[in-house]
């Protein structure tokens, strides 16, 4: 038992308490606040698990972006009195028992998992020089399991299309209704003038170092998306119409570059999504840059919500 173990145990207790309060909090708004805190704590847990890439993603997307979405929704829903007819006690007890059973099963599976630990880590490290990358996680995402990453981008686009599809017919290709303040708020405007230049530099830096160090397209793209949303919320610029050609091009740019490089691999290397020897790293960096743009656009638009009908003012 070291001090670190005690600190970890404390962290786990904190995470569990706050996690539980997102479930058991009386009001939805309190639960959402707890969830944002929970997301940040979880990022620390991932640091303790030596998964810095995941920690960055969790902090940026899991805590930050998801938290923002949930807060926005909770604020809108707070106006509605929710007729709270919680499930009857026996039902809850029964559900609680089953969920405890599931958790216990999972815990048992973890504790009883084979003592001989198999892992792909050696194989990943051994083949990493062929990709020219220094960050093994980037190697997995963009070389070994590139197909998953490519298709996951398509998932993101489909989700965005799904969100857009919830617009009323006449609002199609309108402007996403991300209105929080009726009037421009001077303090927020100030923030939105000062922060984005810094944020954009950080976002680009994140994407750039991703090839060799923790970071990459997801984390960088999320920061860029946050900056864009800040500018939109402060009303320094309107969100683009969902039919905007540049927006559409930005959204598909990353996947198109990814897919093109993948198909070029059929000719230049010997398989789909294979990179020609020696050119792997520049190609992967190019893909990451293109994806950063697309991820930033997709995440920001996902958070901005469906287009709203034009309001007569």
């Amino acid at each position, binding site marked *: 038992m070291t001090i670190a173990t005690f600190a970890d145990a404390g962290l786990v207790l904190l995470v569990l308490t706050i996690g539980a309060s997102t479930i058991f909090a009386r009001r*939805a708004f309190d639960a959402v606040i707890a969830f944002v805190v929970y997301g940040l704590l979880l990022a620390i847990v991932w640091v303790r698990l030596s998964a810095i890439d995941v920690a960055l993603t969790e902090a940026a997307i899991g805590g930050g972006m998801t938290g923002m979405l949930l807060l926005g929704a909770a604020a809108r829903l707070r106006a509605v009195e929710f007729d709270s007819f919680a499930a009857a006690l026996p039902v809850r007890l029964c559900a609680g028992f089953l969920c405890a059973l599931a958790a216990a099963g999972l815990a048992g599976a973890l504790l009883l998992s084979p003592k001989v630990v198999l892992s792909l880590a050696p194989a*990943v490290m051994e083949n990493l020089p062929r990709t020219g990358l220094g960050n093994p996680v980037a190697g997995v995402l963009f070389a070994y399991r590139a197909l998953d990453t490519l298709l996951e981008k398509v998932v993101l686009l489909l989700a965005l299309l799904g969100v857009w599809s919830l617009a009323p017919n006449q609002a199609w290709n309108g402007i996403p209704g991300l209105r929080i303040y009726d009037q421009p708020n001077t303090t927020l405007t100030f923030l939105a003038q000062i922060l984005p230049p810094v944020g954009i530099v950080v976002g680009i830096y994140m994407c750039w170092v991703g090839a060799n160090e923790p970071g990459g397209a997801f984390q960088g793209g999320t920061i860029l998306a946050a900056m864009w949303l800040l500018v939109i919320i402060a009303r320094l610029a309107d969100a683009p119409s969902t039919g905007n050609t540049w927006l559409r091009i930005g959204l598909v740019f990353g996947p198109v570059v990814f897919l093109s490089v993948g198909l070029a691999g059929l000719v230049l290397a010997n398989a789909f999504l294979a990179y020609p020897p020696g050119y792997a790293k520049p190609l992967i960096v190019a893909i990451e840059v293109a994806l950063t743009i697309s991820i930033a656009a997709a995440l920001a638009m996902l958070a901005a919500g469906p287009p709203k009908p034009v309001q007569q003012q």
Partner: protein
Amino acid sequence: MSDATLFGLCGAALAGLGLYGLVTHPEPLRKILAFNLLGSGVFLVFGFVSRRAATAGVPGDPVPQAMVITAIVVAFAATALAIALVLRLLEQTGRATLSSDDPASATGEKGNS
């Protein structure tokens, strides 16, 4: 107990909590929150798997880490879609519940009983 196991068990507990919330909360927003909790618990199981494979020089298996990054992005997309659905429901009906007062599923429930 290693730190990996500790966090893995934490993940299992969080998954159980999230599952409970997802099943019992009647309010859609709370269900979405619970789903996120369940998701993060499951991601910690990946973290356990990754960390357990740590050896000298390698802090953990990068494959599960990459999978978690993919899954976090997917979970965010799912949350965004679910919230958009809830808010659209609110816009149209002035309330946001999953309780079936629509004729379609009401007939189903009546047939059930």
